[in-house]
């Protein structure tokens, strides 16, 4: 049976601001859900709720039917849901390998002891995200793209069945985006995780995701296949202006 991550009726308020207003979603392991929406529409907040970083004001998050939104963040990771940060947060004074090792050691359901097959797993992740040549560099010395790869690799190393990726392709050159999308697809095919991918770079979302959820001011205004979503008049309106050109296929 494939695992399933679901959120039901999520509301999140910050004082007077309603960042999420009755948002629901569901995805199976092995599938990718794209999450798009204008700035400030609540995408990062939704990932924070899904990953246990923030508690929803109301509504629930379920992993295989088990409620996980009341668990502390580290338990959600160990249960199998890991996220990357919109602005990469590597451990700067640790090497790339150590960064991945930390995640592999602590991220698992039963955190791994030393020895075992830990080193092999770390090597595999480094290879998958193409950071092998940088394994001994301090994370602080990485380029933006490499830092984003490291975020991805660390999330992978936790062994999570669901990854929540916050703008992994933002701030990269078109070549780098193409390359990173390739890496993502290859790794996803090999590892078979489910993912929620937050993205402004439309082309990336459209090529990665089987389904797309569109947020606007905290509300889900559309959901469907990428083709359905880009033709939705409400979505086109939400993306009017410079972004509209990105939406056009």
């Amino acid at each position, binding site marked *: 049976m494939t695992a399933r991550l679901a959120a039901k009726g999520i509301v999140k308020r910050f004082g007077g601001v309603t960042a999420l207003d009755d948002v629901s979603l569901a995805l199976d392991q092995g599938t990718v859900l794209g999450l798009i929406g204008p700035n400030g529409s609540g995408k990062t907040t939704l990932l924070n709720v899904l990953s246990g970083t923030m508690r929803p004001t109301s509504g629930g998050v379920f992993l295989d039917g088990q409620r996980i939104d009341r668990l502390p963040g580290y338990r959600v*990771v160990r249960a199998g849901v*890991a996220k990357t940060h919109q602005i990469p947060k590597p451990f*700067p004074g640790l090497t790339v390998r150590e960064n991945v090792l930390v995640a592999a*050691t602590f991220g698992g359901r039963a955190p791994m002891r030393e020895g075992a097959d830990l080193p092999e797993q770390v090597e595999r992740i480094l290879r998958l995200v193409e950071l092998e040549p940088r394994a001994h560099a301090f994370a602080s010395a990485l380029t933006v793209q490499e830092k984003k790869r490291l975020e991805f690799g660390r999330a992978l190393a936790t062994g999570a069945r669901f990854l929540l990726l916050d703008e992994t392709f933002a701030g990269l050159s078109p070549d780098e985006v193409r390359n990173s999308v390739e890496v993502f697809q290859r790794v996803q095919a090999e590892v078979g995780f489910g993912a929620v991918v937050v993205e402004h770079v439309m082309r990336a979302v459209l090529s990665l995701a089987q389904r797309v959820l569109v947020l606007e001011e905290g509300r889900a205004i559309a959901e469907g296949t990428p083709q359905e979503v880009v033709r939705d008049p409400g979505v086109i309106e939400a993306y009017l202006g410079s972004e509209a050109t990105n939406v056009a296929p």
Partner: protein
Amino acid sequence: MTILRPTFLRLRAMSLRILPGHAWGKVRALGPTAQGLGLVLAVLAVVGPVLPVAIFVLLILFMIYATWAYSINLITGMTGYVSFGHVVFVGTGGYALGYGVKVWNIAPFAGVALGGVLGAVLALVIGVVTLRLRGAYFAIATLVTPLAAFYIVSGTPALGDGSGLPMNLGFQIGSQYYTIWALLAAEVALTWWVTRGRLGLGIRALREDEDAARAVGISVSRVKLILYILSGGFAGAAGAVFAWYVSGVFPDSFNLLFSLTMLAMIIIGGMGTVLGPMLGAVIVLIPHQILIRILPQGEPIAIGVSVILIALFLPGGIVGTIRQYVPDARRYFE
């Protein structure tokens, strides 16, 4: 190092005869830093009684300071949370011993244990509330605690109001010496252990970036709280030994200068390291002994200035700086 070699070899030859083979293998696996610290502690244990009393008494004070340095290192050095109010555990431990000895007539040993337990419990209470605060906010929140404690003990008749609890326990320097020795040895071993392996890696990650550490499955809050409780326990126990050593406990044991001194020791020695607090304790205590005689008011200034200079020019302290610039020496400076 080269000059010391022959002595090391001879000692090693000796130990080879004393220890069975497999035990020696374990000792060797510890590496030079732990061996060095172990040797220092062993020498302290063995030669203590044959030293002149003046030096023996000074060594008790040194080990009290070193225990405090390792204590604040457990929280501030390991996690980066600056425990400005750390002296609150020292004073609490002192009053625990003072009250226990005077009112319940317990043995000073038991008073030290009581001081350790109360220090740990207090750290639990303060930690649950303040460890969720980041950076400067944690420092400020903990800063308030010794100030509050000062006013509480100054106004509590059972704790001697403002005049404290003087004790008359006689001359017990032997017991004091081995009590603080045992505390220090246990704490050095603990520090060594928490910097190793899986736990050590997790703590380093947490010190680097707490959010990222949580996001990869580290139980950040629990690790911080446990380190803080251990830290408070050792500071409390050493505070009790200090009260025993000076035959009394007074509201001034909540003096923030102690906090500053503890911080200075790990900033100078090297935060979060195993060797740093020991070096820091030596370096802070020697001028302390001189200044206290010739220019007592000068001490806070001397400490303040040296901490600022170190922070500006050698941010890793002695151990961190050597590790950075002499990679080959890292084995000796962990």
